[in-house]
């Protein structure tokens, strides 16, 4: 059976085998001890493009795709507006069929795009330098903790309990390898554990409200620890960037910057820090240089920090990252520009507050926290959030995250510019009708 993906014809194979001097393909596999070779594989029979398109179209239609629902779920992954232009650019095959740009002269496009990404992310976060991106926000946070450990030579890591629990778990996973001890601090913490490498805070925090980050910075720095901030990139259209309140390392999940949800992946770990920590920074970085004729060009640089040069003494093992997602974020930030990003943040802010107010006026519902918030907030419900969500679903509404294990009957709701007033009003009526 000829395959669209294997262009060698039988004739080609025969010629090539002859030129190689092999009697058969099998001869090429002689190094593999016979008992291991050509064992049976129990796999489904091959299907053609036509069949698989149909099968997977049906399969995908079983999922409640959010373009057909009102969605109030956030908690780290957000449905923000994705301008159509982004897909057209990430869909340029010169970008998406390339490998990591090891050969700079053939890769100026992606290299410059990453350089622009690094620049835009620094502008956004108010930080000095950025790498080319990591896997996701949580692993970036974990790498930040590891980096703080390397910089300070300390083994304790303090994390506020208001940090996204999943992020705390990932910090724990990575920390275990380095024998870091993770300390969970309450929101009203007064001081740092002894010999802490860093304090990790999330702004706005998992429950959606703003931390007193300046106080955190003072306490952390006072104890010789670094401040690691996990930020919401969209919030920075309206609220102060981590660089402005003393973050030494600032990380984020970059998915909201022009990327669909994709069931949570691929995402993008934004990773920024102070210039002085460059040599301890994990991940790839692109630098500007010149060519033999003096023209500007871009290259991967500072590779001596990385695993492929420094091996076991590298700053991280990361190799493949999320370049295409970073490209999307680059186009997003350029498309929105300063006014667009501010507008996005404002829309989120006002719509979330409109929603929160309307719900908290309903009998039996109340806001769990009174601190200022951005686009997420926890509502205490009159019954279990899980039950409520099941009822909302019938109205084509995906409700908020059930956080009843953290807040009594708590539901973490998220409202973005994607939620029209009509959707919000539908949610409120549905909750009222419950």
């Amino acid at each position, binding site marked *: 059976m000829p395959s669209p993906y294997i262009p060698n014809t039988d004739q080609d194979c025969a010629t090539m085998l002859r030129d190689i001097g092999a009697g058969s393909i099998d001869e*090429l596999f002689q190094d593999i001890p016979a008992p291991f070779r050509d064992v049976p594989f129990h796999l489904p029979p091959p299907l053609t493009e036509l069949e698989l398109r149909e099968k997977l179209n049906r399969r995908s239609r079983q999922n409640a795709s959010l373009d057909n629902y009102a969605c109030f779920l956030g908690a780290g992954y957000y449905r923000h507006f994705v301008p159509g232009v982004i897909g057209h650019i990430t869909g340029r095959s010169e970008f998406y069929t390339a490998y990591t740009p090891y050969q700079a002269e053939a890769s100026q496009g992606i290299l410059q795009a990453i350089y622009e990404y690094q620049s835009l992310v620094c502008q956004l976060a108010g930080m000095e330098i950025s790498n080319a991106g990591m896997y996701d926000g*949580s692993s970036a946070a974990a790498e930040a903790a590891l980096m703080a450990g390397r910089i300070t030579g300390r083994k304790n890591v303090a994390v506020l309990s208001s940090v*996204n629990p999943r992020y705390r778990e990932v910090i724990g996973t990575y920390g275990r390898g380095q024998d870091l001890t993770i300390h969970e601090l309450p929101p009203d913490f007064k001081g740092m554990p002894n010999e802490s490498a860093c304090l990790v805070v999330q702004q706005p925090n998992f429950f959606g409200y703003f931390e007193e980050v300046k106080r955190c910075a003072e306490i952390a720095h006072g104890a010789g620890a670094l401040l690691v901030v996990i930020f919401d990139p969209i919030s920075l259209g309206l609220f102060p960037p981590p660089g402005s309140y003393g973050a030494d390392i600032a990380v984020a999940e970059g998915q909201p910057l022009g990327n669909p949800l994709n069931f949570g*992946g691929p995402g993008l770990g934004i990773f920024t820090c102070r210039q002085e920590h460059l040599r301890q920074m994990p991940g790839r970085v692109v630098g500007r240089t010149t060519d*033999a004729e003096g023209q500007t060009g871009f290259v991967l640089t*500072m590779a001596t920090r990385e695993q492929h040069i420094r091996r076991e003494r590298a700053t991280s093992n990361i190799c493949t990252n999320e370049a295409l997602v970073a490209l999307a974020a680059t186009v997003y930030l350029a498309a929105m520009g300063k006014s667009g990003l501010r507008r996005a943040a404002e829309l989120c802010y006002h719509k979330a507050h409109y929603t929160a107010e309307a719900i908290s006026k309903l009998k039996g519902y109340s806001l769990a926290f009174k601190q200022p918030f951005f686009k997420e907030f926890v509502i205490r419900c009159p019954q279990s959030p899980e039950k409520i969500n099941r009822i909302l679903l019938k109205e084509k509404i995906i409700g908020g995250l059930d956080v009843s294990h953290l807040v009594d009957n708590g539901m973490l709701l998220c409202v973005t510019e994607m939620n029209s007033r009509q959707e919000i009003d539908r949610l409120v009526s549905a909750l009222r009708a419950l």
Partner: protein
Amino acid sequence: MKKNKHYLLPDISRPGKVGCQLPELDVPAAELPPREKLRQELTLPEVSEAELVRHFTSLSRRNYGVDTGFYPLGSCTMKYNPKWHEDIARFPGFQDIHPYQPADTVPGALQLMFELQELLAEITGLDATSLTPMAGAQGELAGLLMVRAYHRSRGEDRRRKILVPDSAHGTNPATAAMCGFEVKTIPSNGDGNLDLKSLVSLMNEESAALTLTMPTTLGLFDPRIAEISAIVHERGGLLIGDGANLNSLLGKVKFGDLGFDCVQLNLHKTFSTPHGGGGPGSGPVCVKAGLADFLPSLLVAKDKKRYQFTSPPITIGRLGAACGNFGVMVKAYTYIHSLGAEGLKEVSENAVLNANYIKEKLKPYYHLPYDRTCMHEVVFSGKKQKARGVATLDIAKRLLDYGFHPPTVYFPQVVEEAIMIEPTETESKETLDAFIEAMIEIAREAEQNPELLHHAPHNTPVRRLDEANAARKPNLRWKMK
């Protein structure tokens, strides 16, 4: 066509322009926090959509991808990836779903993940899979964290050394270090195989595991794999595979049969999902039953036709806030279904055939350190040319002038002036022949006109770039006010 002008976003930014417009507020405005709690200044480029598109389109035209031409980057498996996989990954029901939606609103996605777990287990001959790792290196991390947890669970916490062949990819030792292990290097022998004597001497009660890429990063299959496995296991160690080179074994050989306890796969290489200019990837780990309880969360379990996320009982924990790079999984799933068992076998057979063809054709012109049948890739050495003052880097840059992406160079480090060529099965004999011709021509140029090579490339958008200066005075961003 365009004259070679160079712009960065700030160069085309002008106050007042906008590339995307959001709606007006449709609810009453809430009160904003006091001014001092708001951002004072936000500086981002301002460009129209048209300018944006031209900027990035022009950048794309300064980039080389598989769709532009042959990309024989060794160890990277740069296949051509079917276009329609991209379409499927973009179905709204796959793309526009939230990782924390209730399970019964995403049965299609969960079923796909469940089945992919099973398919990868079958392909590797192992018992369980976690799809969570977001690239190969994170899959390695999962593997070695499991190794640590495993030994600890058996009271053997003293096993804190990991044996790594000298030819290994940098991620292997780096991962070992991240997991708190000490790295012990095992040399290769004259045939490019693992030096068994060293293995025997290093594999002791302080050693946790051997991490082995199979076929090795020299593109060779170590015929004594059964012995290696026996040595490691007899001495209480685990055999951990780096599955990045699976493309040569697909549908032919199973890691589990070879004795591996755990292996990470690079879906973005073997399973035909384009590499995105550096990512996203996906690096599932497959393990034998004895390690299954340690797998990173989340897994997808099936319970009477219902699918849901679960966490193994003594999991090493989460590696990310969601469930891995689902968008990449969709393509890998599609790929496996599109080929079936026979198709996968054809993949590895043609990958191996193509590599050996290049090996035979270039052997007279370039030094071949290990003159034996190779698997999916062949490693030459540029030392013949080096002796005449032409570095492997010059050869690589000169290939660009011929319209080819260069092979991987200077890796594996055990080969002097290494040139590592991986053609993959998606290339035709015609393309291989054209590449071979170019390589032969370059070998000739290296003798007759070395200067030409020293100054290559000549036909690219920029000439050879000064990497040393880039590292010396790092300029890592523009600034805008």
